[in-house]
């Protein structure tokens, strides 16, 4: 299907925008760039017929299938326990999964929330990376905390500080905002009989008390309606958060997950790097003997371990492993492990990420350039500025533009994502951001586009506290599972937790004291 510029803009930015765009002068040539997307074609080979038989077999202690954060965290934990004979297979040419990055800008997840004292695995990782204040055990060094100004919002021709649109808010708007904040504060302070918080990162440490888990059975829209939270600005803020963190609209987000986003942070600061979570990925990757470009096609439990078959091009290799950590998402597990019953409860949203290389900073009216720059009237999530955290305030920069396809029908959204090519998505990013920066087109030297077909697990109502989610983390005949989808939300912290947990299952008593 050939999409015209008008079609593209109408599809991804809305009809009024397309009409507006068409009255402009004819589009100038797009800046060059390419599609750096996840390897759909290779991945989709799993759906096809029988893969080639391995020509050779190797034997290893542990095989890790998947080089995202969970798989790398497993490798990290195993290496600290002295387990050396570990092989990690990763389909993509680069490690990191949805935390992938280039050297100086992110391609996906781009920040962490500073860990609570209970999150010892993440504390340990940050300490190893040298991110803590010298001499401190928990305090993050100033230069790794997200620098101020953190966020700004574009509304009708002007940028404002923060994500809540204060300008022009009525008394009723502000009353509702305060009531919502009070509700969040109440949940942040809430403790169950065992002293656990209602919302905690990782979720494994959060309370499973019925009062909290009941929130998972309703949508955030229902929750807001029931409390009279009708203010358009407040709903925009909350929906921006569910779109940003889960790729979901209010209707499709579990109220538990939406409140988790706000209440679990407990005013802890944001930790980030120019390349986003590429920084901790690079640290974890030092522990991994990774083979990139390899697609694990099957995991078969046998008498004394698991037989692994992996494929690169037409070359197939077999590995007989004592234990396997499957660190991919559940929809892949269903195809790779035929012996294990699949669950249809796990659904994944689609994302587009574009990196725009700029010659110079774009013009903007109102509040100055921040780390996160969001447009109020846009289906996109705005952009982050890669040079912000380096304190480079002038000259060339890279803007990372995020667009979550939030429609309820995940299959259709994925078709929409993959139906648009590099040029179409580059046009969307330019047209969207040009509203706030009229000179953007002339400053952009290059636009690369990543299409994430299964970017994030979707915490739709009922999923996070479902039996299906709990059971998916249970080992299956020597295969252990580690992925953020086992938490029901896509977060670096959750992936790290599951990676360490799965590694400790494999280690057993060998692992010594748990890191969790």
């Amino acid at each position, binding site marked *: 299907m050939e999409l015209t510029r008008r079609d593209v803009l109408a599809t991804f930015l809305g009809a009024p925008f397309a009409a507006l765009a068409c009255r402009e002068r004819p589009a100038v040539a797009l800046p060059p760039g390419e599609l750096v997307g996840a390897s759909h074609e290779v991945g989709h080979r799993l759906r096809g017929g029988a893969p080639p038989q391995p020509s050779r077999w190797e034997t290893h202690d542990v095989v890790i299938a998947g080089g995202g954060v969970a798989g790398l965290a497993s490798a990290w934990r195993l290496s600290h326990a002295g387990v050396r004979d570990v092989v990690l297979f990763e389909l993509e040419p680069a490690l990191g999964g949805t935390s992938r990055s280039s050297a100086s800008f992110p391609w996906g997840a781009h920040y962490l929330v500073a860990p609570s004292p209970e999150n010892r695995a993440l504390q340990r990782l940050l300490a190893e990376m040298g991110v803590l204040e010298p001499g401190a055990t928990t305090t993050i060094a*100033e230069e790794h905390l997200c*620098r*101020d100004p953190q966020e700004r919002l574009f509304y009708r021709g002007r940028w404002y500080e923060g994500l809540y649109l204060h300008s022009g808010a009525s008394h009723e708007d502000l009353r509702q905002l305060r009531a919502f904040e009070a509700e969040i504060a109440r949940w942040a302070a809430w403790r169950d009989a065992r002293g656990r918080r209602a919302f905690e990162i990782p979720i494994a440490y959060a309370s499973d008390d019925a009062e909290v888990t009941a929130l998972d059975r309703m949508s955030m829209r229902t929750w807001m309606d029931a409390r009279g939270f009708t203010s358009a600005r407040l709903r925009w803020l909350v929906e921006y958060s569910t779109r940003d963190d889960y790729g979901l609209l209010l209707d499709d987000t579990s109220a538990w997950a939406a409140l988790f986003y706000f209440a679990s942070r407990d005013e802890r600061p944001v930790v980030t790097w120019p390349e986003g979570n590429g920084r901790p990925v690079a640290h974890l990757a030092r522990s991994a003997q990774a083979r990139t470009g390899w697609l694990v096609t099957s995991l078969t439990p046998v008498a004394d371990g698991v037989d692994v078959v992996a494929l690169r091009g037409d070359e197939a290799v077999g590995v007989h492993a004592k234990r396997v950590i499957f660190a991919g998402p559940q929809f892949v597990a269903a195809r790779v492990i035929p012996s294990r019953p699949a669950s249809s409860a796990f659904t994944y949203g689609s994302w587009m990420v574009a990196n725009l290389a700029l010659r110079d900073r774009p013009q903007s009216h109102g509040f100055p350039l921040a780390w996160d720059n969001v447009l109020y009237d846009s289906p996109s999530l705005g952009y982050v500025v890669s040079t912000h955290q380096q*304190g480079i305030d002038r000259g060339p920069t890279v803007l990372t533009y995020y667009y979550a396809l939030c429609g309820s029908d995940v299959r259709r959204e994925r078709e929409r994502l993959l139906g648009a090519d590099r040029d179409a998505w580059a046009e969307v990013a330019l047209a969207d951001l040009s509203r706030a920066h009229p000179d953007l087109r002339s400053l952009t030297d290059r636009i690369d586009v990543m299409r994430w077909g299964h970017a994030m697990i979707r915490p739709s109502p009922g999923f996070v506290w479902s039996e299906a989610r709990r059971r998916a983390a249970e080992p299956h005949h020597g295969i252990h599972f580690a992925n953020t989808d086992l938490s029901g939300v896509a977060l670096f912290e959750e992936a790290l937790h599951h990676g360490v947990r799965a590694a400790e299952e494999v280690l057993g008593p060998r692992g010594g004291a748990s890191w969790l």
Partner: protein
Amino acid sequence: MNRTPILFLNVLVIAACGLMYELLAGTVASYVLGDSVTQFSLIIGLYLSALGVGAWLSRFLDRDLAARFVDVELAVALLGGLSAPMLFLGFARLEWFRLFLFLVVFAIGVLVGLELPILMRILKEHLDFKELVSRVLSFDYIGSLFAAVLFPMFLMPRLGLVRTSIVFGLLNAAVGLYGTWLLRPLLRGVMMLRIRAAFVIVVLLIALLRADVLTTLAEDELYADDIVYSSSSPYQRILVTNNAAGFQLFLNGNLQFSSADEYRYHEALVHPAMSAAKSMGRVLILGGGDGLALREVLKYGGVQQVTLVDLDPKMTALSANFAPLRTLNHNAFADRRVRVVNEDAMIWIERVRESFDVVIVDFPDPSSFSLGKLYSTRFYRLVRARLVPDGAISVQCTSPLYARQSYWCIIRTLEAAGFSVRPYQTTVPSFGVWGFALASPRAVDAPSVVQVPTRFLDDATLAAMFVFPRDMGPVPVEINRLDNQILVRYYEDEWRKWS
């Protein structure tokens, strides 16, 4: 036509307006570009030649002369009336301001040049040639006299440039509108002309009501004295003005120093740290591209090497080569001990591994986030890491009187970064009461001896600077960090009250 006498009154108004726009353009150009003789000379020459072009072009107008006359009036009203605000804003926003200025002046000249020939052709039906020329030209010259006398005596002082410009635009528009009645018998489509005239008048009235905003915008770029140098770098607009007391450097419109009293500021900035440090072999100056702190540092024979880190190569080159500045800083940049680095100080200091005995921190006030980061705990910790344990630093800290919270925020931030701090202040007439900090990784006493020749500081004055009057004493503040940039917010709130 018995209305001709009134038409001659119009000639008077038109002439006054025409000269007024010329005067306005000349004044704006002298204000923003300096060198008033050149500016007025160029503007007058260009304007007169444009009048000629307009007069010549009038031959191509044959039909509907009366309607064309009204159109020209309205065009002059709009362009001339908005000329002063346009030129001010243009100067603030445009790289090619001079071209813009000449275009505006030329366009007004051409339009004004069309006015009288058209009017004379309309009137020629009713008067003989001798009468016509004598009356039109005499009213023309009288009108010019009115404008020339009124402008400096009354209009400039009372109304200012922007309002004068708009008021005369309104006069032009009134002539145009009135013309639709005066020339009624000669006109077709009167209604359209009147609507156009009303539109122009409404636009100008709105501009007049908003003149305060326009003036504020404009006066950001307006300086009281002659401008002897102006240039824009990618980082800032650099401007040097000159008056009887000496000359002044402005960066982005903010006064950096006046040669009349800068020695007070720079002696106070440099000598306490030089006296307090145990050694002074290697000195680091952060900011201070004017070379004036450098001049003070170089007075010490014990100084072997000075590294000056300033963001803007244009600024350091100007200080090294522009005669008035070079004289003022005693040709400091030519000293063999001096090394200049043009880089963002934050990024530079994260990278270097050298140690320094004394660090002089002389950044512009924290008026933006990119400056605020240079006053953060992170930055001061990096400075401390580059300082020998017995070393000393001094920091310019804005005014403890006008911006008390900002001042104490900087002091507390230095303390939070592990410095022992001695706050001090003095008076610099161009700035008012000004604040500094002397700090060291070890406990530091207020120094008591000035070791080099000075114009302002003596031992007694040095001691007196460390006394803080009650109205500038400590106030509770937060620490300025990269992740809160609280100082920029204090600073904005506090200076807003005074400006």
